[in-house]
């Protein structure tokens, strides 16, 4: 997407992230993703352009926003933003007293973003932490990800990557040696199912997983356990087989959370709702069931 020296589109910077790699980290969320996983936790991360989120629960129906859009992309009603007209310029934000309109996605140069991340450098140093690139899909803006990683490493800040694996290996190769670790998220091993669940084929992903494992890089494979979608005995067995084949028989499981569903309306439904009616306890039970199956197939499971 982005040219070298160009700007990167980032939608969130989260400090004191302690579950995204070792130590205290700052996680940078890249905007734009080639996949459309039906359970996506961060639907605001999907479209590779700045957007406006509409938080209906904050709206006081003052009507102040309606006239503020130069493109006429704001209309009364629950959706409020006419997505096909909105270019995400953000001129409307200022019109709302209540903060019901929020900008999602801001362009940064690698240098400025690295400086922002470096604010927590004392804590990276004291904890062995650093920066984690997440998203969205960081490799969807590979040149920027590479430039940012170089900037951070120049400042002595270690960098980790969370990826779905949907990248071209040739473009990715220069980034790999600069990374302290990679979190690689698997979804489903079956091509057809993968396409059904994420909207995209998984041949390249599997290929990249293989190459990454063979490269000797520090890779952690992870997988969300989405009840009824990818936790069947057969598909888990396939995952187990794949990891054994890579000689990386370890998997980190993530419990399903309906958090993403709540955010869909704000973003004008970039994906349709999944409609899974699972509370946290049920999701954790599904995760435990999956753990048992995977362990039975010789996989060491963490969560």
């Amino acid at each position, binding site marked *: 997407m982005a040219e070298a020296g160009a700007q990167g589109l980032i939608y969130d910077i*989260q*400090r*004191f992230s*302690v579950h995204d790699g070792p*130590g*205290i980290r700052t996680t940078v969320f890249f905007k734009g993703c080639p996949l459309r996983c039906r359970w996506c936790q961060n639907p605001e991360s999907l479209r590779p352009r700045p957007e406006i989120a509409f938080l209906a629960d904050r709206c*006081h129906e*003052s009507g102040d926003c309606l006239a503020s859009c130069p493109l006429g992309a704001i209309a009364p009603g629950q959706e409020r933003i006419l997505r096909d007209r909105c270019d995400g310029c953000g001129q409307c934000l*200022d019109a709302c*007293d*209540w*903060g019901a309109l929020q900008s999602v996605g801001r362009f940064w140069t690698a240098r400025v973003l690295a400086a922002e991340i470096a*604010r*927590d450098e*004392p*804590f*990276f*140093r*004291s*904890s*062995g*932490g650093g920066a984690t690139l997440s998203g969205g899909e960081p490799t969807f803006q590979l040149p920027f990800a590479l430039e940012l990683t170089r900037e951070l490493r120049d400042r002595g800040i270690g960098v980790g990557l969370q990826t779905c694996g949907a990248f071209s290996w040739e473009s990715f190769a220069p980034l790999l040696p600069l990374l302290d670790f990679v979190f690689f998220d698997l979804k489903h091993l079956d091509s057809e199912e993968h396409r059904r669940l994420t909207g995209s084929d998984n041949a390249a992903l599997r290929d990249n997983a293989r190459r990454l494992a063979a490269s000797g890089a520090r890779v952690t494979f992870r997988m969300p356990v989405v009840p009824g979608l990818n936790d069947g005995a057969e598909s888990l067995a396939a995952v187990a087989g794949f990891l054994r084949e890579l000689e990386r028989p370890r998997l980190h499981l993530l419990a399903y959370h309906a958090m993403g569903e709540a955010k869909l309306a704000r973003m004008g439904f970039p994906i349709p709702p999944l409609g899974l009616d699972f509370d946290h306890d049920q999701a954790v039970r599904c995760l435990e069931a999956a753990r048992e199956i995977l362990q039975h197939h010789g996989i060491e499971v963490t969560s």
Partner: protein
Amino acid sequence: MTSPTPLPSRLFALDRAIRSAKPGLCAERALSVTRYFKGQNGERPMAIQKAEALCAILREKTVRIWPGELLVGNFTCHRVGGGLYPELHGVAMLEDLLAMDSRQINPLQVQPGDRRRLLAEVLPYWTTRMLAVRGRPVLEAARFVADQLSPTLSLINESGGISHFVPDYARLLAGGTDGIRAQAAERLEQVPKGSPEAAFLEAVRIACDGLDAFAERYRAEALRLAEQETDRIRAAELNRIAEVCARVPRHGARSFHEALQSMLFAQIALNLESLDNAVSPGRIDQLLWRYYEEALASGRLDQAGALELLGCFALKLCEIIPAFSRRLTRFHGGLFNGQVVVVGGLDRHGEDATNEVSYLCLELMDQLRTRQPNWHARLSKKSPERYRTRIAQALAKGAVSPALYNDEVIVPVVRSRSDSDSDARDYATVGCVEPVVAGKSFWSTDAALFNLPLCLELALNEGRRFGSRKRIGAATRPLESCQSIGEVIELFRVQLERAVDRLLLDLHAIEEQNLRWHPTPLTSALLDGCLASARDASAGGATYNGSGVQGVGAVEVGDSLAALEAVVFRDRKATLAQVVEACRGDFAKDPALRARLRAAPKFGNDDEFADRHVAGVMRLFSSALARGHSARGGSYQAGYYSVTAHQAFGEEVGALPSERAAKTPFSSGLTPASGCDRKGPTAALLSQAHLPLSEARNGINFNLQLAPWAVKGEPGTLWLRALVDGGFDAGCMQLQVNVLDPKLLIEARDNPGKFPGILVRVSGYSAYFDDLSPAIKQEIIDRTLHDAGIA
């Protein structure tokens, strides 16, 4: 290396006895002092009278040795109790004497006979003689008392005596009272007969004699009990206690046991002499280290034995509580005495001073979790791994103590007020958070509390409080006429300086009265410089003098200025007049404007836009204070801890441009306003580091409230350690960690008495949750809910 050492069971038994005791009001001190002064004609020097009064107190008070005790001495006649200081502020304390045992918060048992005698004998005598009204015209005295009974702009704690020092216990342990008497006698030969200096030195001798006689009473009691004792082991313990009491404090201490007992006797006498507030034992690991090493080497004591004695000392400090009236409890809630005990940090030569006694203290903090002492840990770049990790372990488990102090910031701050690097490195903290040179400073660190946001309210409203026509501040021009945030700040400065001037005037008067009416010879004997200068500490005899005034609500003022700058001058979304009107109406008609103000940058997010305004408020307050000088010599220094005054002062102040509602609490010390630290703990800590902490010479408190998940398990301990190390590396001065489960707190709020042991960090000190007022309880619950991501 860091697995917890189990505590001796004796400590838990003593702890249970103390926790289950109903706190009582002790009339003994008040009656002794009153009887003594009624018998004086006022012609003899006050120093001598005060020394004799102390002797009378120590001679007449109840002596009790409780079952299982190894260290002996009673602050009051109750197991847990508070005394009265009628000559200082005690008459004001007696305000709710009739209701003290039935009041909701911090009830104190009062024996019916005591109540009658206090009302008949004590009250009438001191009403016209207590410190707050001495030497003032009647109307002026009445104005001052009325001001102090319902403080809005400031509260002068010094009108209740001074205290707040770290005694020179090293001197006591080395030479005993014998050593002090010898020095006093030597100086006596050098000063003119009949001079105030001679009277002071004579008073020192009398006070030392009184302290020795006090120990003798315990020796006799221990022997008496030993004779009756049927259990041979306990009888042996009692005989041992008698031997120790025969030796100290008169002579230098020879053993770990004698050292602790000597300090305890002095600790009790100092509390009874001066004021029962913030007599702080100081760097206990440095004082005891040589005794511990020697005891272990000679085989006279093992680690468990030392831990047991140390624990007995800590528990003894829990037996005294302040007998505050309801009014004062609003400002000083939580039955807190401010007896700080410090571990770790640099030694006088700049090397790490952590030793095995430091680790024993950490065990007590982790496992015993008592309200007192107020445990503090110093950290420097040289602090060892084991020490850092042990502290993080204890805090991650919810220990609340220790509060953490950064030598890299504080040593230079103390250096700026002292004569040598080695004195600066030998600082200890007092009361809540205040650094002093141990054993050498009389810095009256808690002289007064000052309401900063009220000055902003006055600036917004031409010198009046919202809803009042009476002008209590300067007649500044209407806020609407300001063209920039700089001009708004200028109005605040004018109001601030006027209010500070008024405070310093009152404070000066009180200092003069302390000097004249409340000399403290024993305190002075245990402060370096007083014997050499032959002058009482209250007259500036100590090596280092000064005074500390706390700015409460600096964060709210800073956030308000940031909000005005952002909303009015940067975004032009409202006019100053509109913001003032919204504040005047407590935002009832302007919820939209309030939302704008809420969204403005706030302190605690590593955002220079807001942080620089809090910094600016601190600079203005320091400069305002710097224009005065204490009557003892030395300057007024700014501190930023609030005890519970952030709550009480908050109730006096209307809505603020920060969007804080009228009458709600400010944040504690320099903690970000509740719910306003939106970027997590690292950003909050960096915001602290951005402040001009070298101007906060009287110390700060900063609560780092963490959700339980953030400190869970082994990784949680590492994160916590990394937060502390990173924050201190970045330049933070102080932090205190509170890990709380909001559910438990809500249950404790709804069922008082069900969880008596929940200790929380209030502001520079710890208190049992049950002992707090409903408003403070709610504040802590709100803070916790926010941090747990629930609200």
